[in-house]
């Protein structure tokens, strides 16, 4: 059963086509990685899935329901959680309060139930020591964890992670991978955009390659990584 279906999705900003006829099926419980050079349209694809921007043509289906015209709020309620590439915490709220917003509005939890779910996510993402700290004063790793934790708090079926490992040290990266794996193990579907390939490939089962808005290929991690076209894009090797 596919949880997300994209049907020939296209989006242009003026003369620039950032998403060009992308079609994709993501199965429930799957972990999919999206790679591609800067400006390939990866984040735009997330914005289209999360509803932050509307496509020029094509359709987005969640659990078989067409949500192409649905607002970001409606898609959160339909089970899409997202993290932003540049962390966007509610900076005057604490970590706990950030999560409470997501749990109560996105996850539909109330009162003690919401607190409980937030606390377990705080523990899972290693934010316990800073739970009551204002999120504006967090370190980069903590901000990235908060992005992940806040997206988790909306109780998503599908979670979109946008370059969540970028800018972290190796040690921090390993810890984050562990957390993401544990989220995946709970059955949450993951779509993850990442430049840190070793991090990405240790979690995802499939890779999709975007280039100039077009889907270049999609397939097993090994198959994609060894494809000449991918090497050409990433390493600039003429083949």
């Amino acid at each position: 059963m596919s949880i997300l279906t994209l049907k020939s999705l296209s989006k242009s900003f003026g003369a620039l086509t950032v998403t060009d006829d992308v079609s994709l099926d993501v199965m429930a419980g799957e972990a999919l990685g999206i790679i591609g050079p800067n400006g390939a349209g990866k984040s735009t694809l997330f914005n289209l899935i999360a509803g932050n921007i509307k496509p020029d043509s094509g359709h987005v289906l969640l659990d078989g329901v067409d949500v192409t015209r649905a607002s970001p709020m409606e898609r959160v309620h339909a089970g899409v959680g997202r993290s932003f590439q540049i962390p966007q915490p509610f900076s005057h709220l604490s970590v706990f309060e950030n999560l409470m917003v997501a749990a109560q509005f996105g996850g539909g939890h109330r009162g003690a139930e919401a607190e409980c779910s937030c606390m377990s996510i705080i523990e899972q993402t290693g934010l316990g020591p800073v739970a009551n700290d204002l999120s504006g004063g967090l370190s980069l790793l903590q901000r990235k964890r908060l992005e992940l934790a806040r997206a988790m708090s909306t109780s998503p079926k599908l979670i979109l992670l946008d370059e969540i490992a970028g800018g972290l040290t190796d040690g921090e990266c390993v810890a984050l991978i562990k957390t993401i794996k544990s989220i995946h193990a709970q059955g949450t579907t993951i779509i993850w955009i990442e430049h840190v390939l070793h991090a990405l490939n240790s979690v995802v089962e499939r890779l999709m390659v975007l280039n100039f808005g077009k889907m270049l290929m999609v397939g097993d991690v090994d198959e994609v990584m060894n494809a000449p076209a991918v090497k050409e894009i990433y390493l600039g090797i003429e083949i």
Partner: protein
Amino acid sequence: MLDQKTINRILMAFGIVGVALLFAVPIIGSRAMVQDLFGVLTLLILAQNWNLLAGFAGLVSVGQQAFVGVGAYAMFACVILLGLDPLVGILVGGFVAMALAVPMAFFAFRLAGAYFAIGTWVVAEIVRLCFAQWKALGGGTGTSLPKGTTKNMFGVPEIKELLGVSSSAASDALTYWLALVLALATLGAGYFFLRSRMGLGLQAIRDNDEAARSVGVNPTRLKAWVFMLTAFGTGICGALLFIQITRVTPEAAFSVLDWTAFVIFITVIGGIGTLPGPIVGVVFFYILQRALSDYGTVYLIVLGSIGIIVMLFARRGLWGLFSDKTGIELLSLRQYAPETKPNPLAQIK
């Protein structure tokens, strides 16, 4: 340094004594004092509402006088046209103001920032011009409450007997107590609203609109709620104000200076976006007014200059400055993770 518990107790004691003294003013104080404090309390109510609107929902409205005026006129209509008790008119005033907020939001919510401010002002002017056409309530020249209305108002004869004062003093006492209760209720309602799920959502929107949408918060819906609720509070306050004034004209009821400009000044000086801010602001404003009222125009020049200085150098107002320096937070809105919950009423940062 005092510990948190002691500070809590001291503040609590101050609060209780202060409120008790305020309640006792009509019994122990002069009538002039009652009238003076009535003015202060009504300004406080307006400032509390505007603070919720602008400081927490980011809706910088310059058209709140529309709700004051509509509340006042609705109360007058209830008394003069329907023969109801003025106190019923107060409630009706609140609901009519809330009803006006619906079409007003419909237009003004299409605008953002400075355009929203101008838009609300324009709507308020249109509403004023409309009410100036209402011949039954005196049109452009306005009208007065029928003679004896406030003397026979619900509760006034009892207060008159109890305190042994004239009818007009008893009616002043009643409107004063109503203003005090309304100010306390607004403070309490604001506190509980902001600490609720909706209040947390509002704070999230204030910090980051796009991220708030991405976790399922609907900014428009939340802001519309705040707009309607503060319209209700402002309308009630407007009706109460004009019971005491007993005469209404479109200019007085829809005065942008009296019901919005001073109110913005009070909120900004005291500390916009903090709950104690309007209280601090109104006390400061009252002291300034008393000290400078003999100097005419100079008073407004000083007022404006102080407003500019605070906006430039203490953006969170006098309360924000005090809170940052001492680390004392009153009526904090912070929510704590379950196992680490200190007293939410006051704590040291």
